[in-house]
């Protein structure tokens, strides 16, 4: 991607919605997700203008995941529905809750692999992990998620 503003605007327009959804899955709050995504994209734009970005996708997702990790350091999580949103399905809340019981790095691997569809090597580059660790996080994360969801559903129905 060149550092010209037209190219940058095209990049931001195409990536911002998806990046914000990933941020929401990481932090569970649309307001925070919007704020983090905007700050991340602003850094991508600023650094691209001075030619400091080699791969804007890797750069953007790596920055976003790091921002989410810093934000979630205290492990506090409250799911916040968007203002004016209709009622949110109980299953969705259970899933978000289960996702947020995982360690930030594990959650990031699941979001990047399962939601964003990045290959393990790209995820490794974004999170500074080798392929083996990406696979281990994904395997363990999916298993833990399944266990948490089963427990939550059982508690809901029982």
């Amino acid at each position, binding site marked *: 991607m060149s550092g010209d503003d037209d190219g940058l*605007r095209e990049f931001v327009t195409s990536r911002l919605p998806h990046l914000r959804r990933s941020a929401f899955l990481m932090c569970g709050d649309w307001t925070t997700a919007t704020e983090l995504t905007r700050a991340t994209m602003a850094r991508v734009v600023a650094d691209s203008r001075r030619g400091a970005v080699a791969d804007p996708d890797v750069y953007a997702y790596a920055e976003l995941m790091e921002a989410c990790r810093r934000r979630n*350091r205290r492990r506090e999580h409250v799911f916040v529905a968007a203002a004016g949103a209709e009622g949110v399905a109980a299953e969705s809340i259970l899933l978000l809750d289960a996702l947020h019981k995982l360690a930030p790095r594990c959650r990031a691997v699941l979001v990047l692999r399962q939601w964003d569809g990045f290959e393990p090597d790209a995820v490794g580059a974004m999170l500074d992990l080798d392929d083996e660790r990406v696979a281990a996080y994904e395997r363990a994360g999916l298993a833990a998620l399944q266990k948490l969801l089963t427990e939550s559903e059982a508690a809901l129905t029982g």
Partner: protein
Amino acid sequence: MTMPLTRLLEHVLAGEPDLGDEIDAVFRDADRIRRRRTRVLIAAGAGVVATLAVTGLVLTTTLLPSRPAGDQVARQAAPAGSAVPVPSNVADPVLAVLAPAVDDRKMHIYPRPPERGNGWRQYSVTDSAGRARGTVEIAVYDVAGDMCFPVLAHPNKCARTEWAPAGVEYVRYDDEHDPDWQVNQTIARRITDGRTLAVMATGERGADKPAAGEPGLTGAQIEKIATDQRLFDAFDPAERCSGPSSGACPAFRMPVPLPSS
């Protein structure tokens, strides 16, 4: 999960708010970043000038007699009380994980005073004749990010981890070089939530023969115990050997490296 995670996540995103003028806001923020960087650059230049001026001032005053420095009193922070009171009739879930391994060796294990605190437990082991066979100490930590498992011989390197079922990575640190402090230790980390356990069995110190100073549990037993999911769950989720009460935590042969922030 009866349907793929991707499909489930799509439902979670229902109710997504409009983007509004976010695109323009991104570019406004990018301009702000550029202006801030310029200011920082100017401030750094000013800082260099100020440093040079201060250095000159210091050099000109070096001939003046310096004020005698006051005695510095080393303050040793007293470890904060960390005991977690538990009714005696409540079974100790940590002990429940340890006991079978000790029983297998026809030994006995019981809490060793001070037996517990926030995120740690310690126990004594005796053989069938009642002779002391050392201690078992356990502590739990939260390490959310990736952890560099230390290497005994190379302080600045990271050990290659082994994997136990359910996403537990671990490294064994057995050290019998010092016959007076023989140690079997394992550090294990559950990668799904970052809970990290250090489990260490040490032999009796001052034993007349090296064999008498062997730990009550073998390295393999400690490894099995440290990677047992039940041991992770035996601690209260709020417990961790860090923060104000960490001074009371056991001293491990190989400490768990904790992030500084």
